[in-house]
């Protein structure tokens, strides 16, 4: 194994490769558009839009296969900042924040900004307090980092078990959401679709582990952004004549403010701890778009931002990504890109919600001015909207929208060709695949590296490590599919649970491990376990209804406990060794060797010395 500078040179042809992919994806869309006008069989076009991109992703993943550990676990440490940022943004969003997030903006308006502010704050906190130091350390997984940093196998295994839970939740949520989206594209048994998606994730990532995931994931993220921005821009041009959907919807918002109350939407007051983002399924609009704190109370808004930010910034399926950047400087820059991309995507999502609100308002106002608009019947036929087609007066109360269909109702409401509808679906499937891929690869790496081989620090032979991980990719994909099939829960709720659990269990210890030298390994173990335990307990109690903190953000209650225990136990007994102090000092300085590689070499030398 060589870790020379040469191995970390960025491939200069990346731009060309991904331009080719973007062109292919666009061509696919244009072909479907043309064939649709030629009245080609609709089922064929739908199948093409589902199978085509998935085959390309699998092709990319298989073609960059590798048996080298550095490639397999860290994508060769040569992924440039912009690509890493794109991947971070896309895997943090996933199909859940894309599809259910649009629904949340549509129903809750201002209050859904908790998702956006939380995600952006998470990336900013990660950029400033964690990412550069994690990159300098260079570990492949978060438990490996914690274990090596504190020289404690117990901590390594405990944190591996703890981080596995939220990752499995996110994986199940993404597969569930992905299956829901795919169900709109091809008519098939939803359980079968979950299995097909899980299989496609496993095939795409198994050949080259994180390397396969990286390059297939970049393609998926590009597909997601092309689809979302393409459709939103088209609609924006049609509705407002300006090709900037994020900014051009201002006058529409003004119209919403003026007319929604007139049409019967009342300002609603909630108590400060309410957290009522819309759930799965159909619902009616209930609050004016720009009214703050009608669905999410002001206290819950602050707590929610904090919970999501803490979860995103230490997410074990996001943070190891920065270990794949070529340098510490690039790691910092990659978080800047992640902020740009996720903010852009979420602003676009909010613009989509505003356009849809405008169409809904039109529909409600229309029957006084004339017959109901035609798109309502199309959308109802596609199961995106439901309304009483015989009613004489269609108020806001008579018009129900599917939360997970709002995004896809946009091209229908604008009466664009069906190809735009398929394009959005393909983008959402790509989002589900990239987030599912991120969790699958990271969880498989945690299980293979920190659970199975966690008892010994000495790394086994490179081929053994790679093959154990390959087996675990299959197992994890299978488990994710099983959870998604057996316990179908609202994906948005699952992701929020996962984020607040991660924030409660990992955030305090991760922050302190960099910023406080005196944190001891016992205190770190106590912090991780207590944070997780209290967080999980709070979620359970809140689900039963015994405490009034809403369950999506209740997990964050574990965070102060974890902080207190970690700091308190460290103060009681100081036991930091010379070696760990040296590691902390090295983490804090960008220059010099990568700590993880140096430690691995030291261990291997010791092993050779013994035999």
């Amino acid at each position, binding site marked *: 194994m060589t870790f020379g500078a040469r191995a*970390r040179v960025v491939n200069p042809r990346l731009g060309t490769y991904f331009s080719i992919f973007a062109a292919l994806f666009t061509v696919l869309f244009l072909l479907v558009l043309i064939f649709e006008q030629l009245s080609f069989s609709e089922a064929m076009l739908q199948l093409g839009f589902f199978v085509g991109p998935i085959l390309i992703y699998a092709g990319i993943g298989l073609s960059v296969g590798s048996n080298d550990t550095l490639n397999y676990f860290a994508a060769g440490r040569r992924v440039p900042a912009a690509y890493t940022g794109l991947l971070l943004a896309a895997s943090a969003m996933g199909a859940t924040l894309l599809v259910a997030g649009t629904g949340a903006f549509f129903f809750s308006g201002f209050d859904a900004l908790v998702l956006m502010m939380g995600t952006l704050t998470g990336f900013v906190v990660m950029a400033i307090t964690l990412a550069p130091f994690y990159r300098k350390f260079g570990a492949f997984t978060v438990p490996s980092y914690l274990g090596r940093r504190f020289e404690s196998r117990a901590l390594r295994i405990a944190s591996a078990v703890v981080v596995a839970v939220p990752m499995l939740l996110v994986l199940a949520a993404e597969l569930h959401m992905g299956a829901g989206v795919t169900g709109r594209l091809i008519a098939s048994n939803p359980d079968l679709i979950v299995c097909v998606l899980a299989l496609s994730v496993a095939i795409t990532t198994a050949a080259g582990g994180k390397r396969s995931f990286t390059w297939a994931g970049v393609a998926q993220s590009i597909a997601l952004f092309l689809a979302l921005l393409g459709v939103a821009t088209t609609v924006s041009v049609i509705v407002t004549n300006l090709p900037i959907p994020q900014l051009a919807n201002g006058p529409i918002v003004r119209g919403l403010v003026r007319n929604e109350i007139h049409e019967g939407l009342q300002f609603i007051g909630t108590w400060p701890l309410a957290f009522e983002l819309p759930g799965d399924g159909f619902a009616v609009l209930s609050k004016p778009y720009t009214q703050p704190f009608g669905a999410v109370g002001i206290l819950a808004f602050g707590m929610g931002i904090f919970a999501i930010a803490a979860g995103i910034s230490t997410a074990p399926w996001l943070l190891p990504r920065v270990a794949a950047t070529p340098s510490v400087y690039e790691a910092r820059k990659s978080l800047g890109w992640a902020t740009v991309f996720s903010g852009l995507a979420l602003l676009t999502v909010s613009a989509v919600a505003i356009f849809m609100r405008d169409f809904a308002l039109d529909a409600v106002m229309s029957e006084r001015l004339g017959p109901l608009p035609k798109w309502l019947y199309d959308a109802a036929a596609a199961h995106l909207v439901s309304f009483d087609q015989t009613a004489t007066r269609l108020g806001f109360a008579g018009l129900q929208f599917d939360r997970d269909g709002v995004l896809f109702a946009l091209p229908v409401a604008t009466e664009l060709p069906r190809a735009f509808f398929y394009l959005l679906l393909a983008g959402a499937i790509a989002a589900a695949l990239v987030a599912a891929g991120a969790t699958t690869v990271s969880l498989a790496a945690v299980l293979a590296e920190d659970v199975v081989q966690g008892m010994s620090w000495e790394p086994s032979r490179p081929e053994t490590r790679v093959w154990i991980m390959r087996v675990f990719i299959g197992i994890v994909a299978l488990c994710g599919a099983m959870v998604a099939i057996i316990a179908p829960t609202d994906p948005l709720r699952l992701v929020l649970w996962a984020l607040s659990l991660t924030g409660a269990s990992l955030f305090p210890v991760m922050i302190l491990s960099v910023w406080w030298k005196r944190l001891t390994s016992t205190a770190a173990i106590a912090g991780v376990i207590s944070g997780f335990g209290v967080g999980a307990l709070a979620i359970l109690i809140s689900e039963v209804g015994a405490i009034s903190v809403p369950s999506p953000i209740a997990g964050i209650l574990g965070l102060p406990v974890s902080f207190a225990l970690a700091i308190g136990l460290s103060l009681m007994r100081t036991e930091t060794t010379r070696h760990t102090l040296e590691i902390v000092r090295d983490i804090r300085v960008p*220059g010099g060797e990568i700590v993880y590689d140096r430690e691995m070499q030291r261990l291997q030398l010791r092993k050779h010395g013994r035999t």
Partner: protein
Amino acid sequence: MIERKERKPYWRHTKWQVLASLIPFLAIVMVLPLYADQLNANRFLGFPLGYFLAAHGFFVIAVVTVASYVNRQNAIDHWHGAHEDV
């Protein structure tokens, strides 16, 4: 490679930079939602101001925070000779 006696000043410098980047940002996160309702009475580009600041404004603030941090921290690394060789 950083010199031994530079480590302490380097870390002090870094800590101040982190505080200077994080504290204003976190203050905005906490304060912005509180005043959204009052700000909504005003208009900007057609948006109610409170909503505009919490969505578009916050996005710009986040990007500027990270960008300025990356720039400053890189300068600090070079100043103390703590930067990477690559």
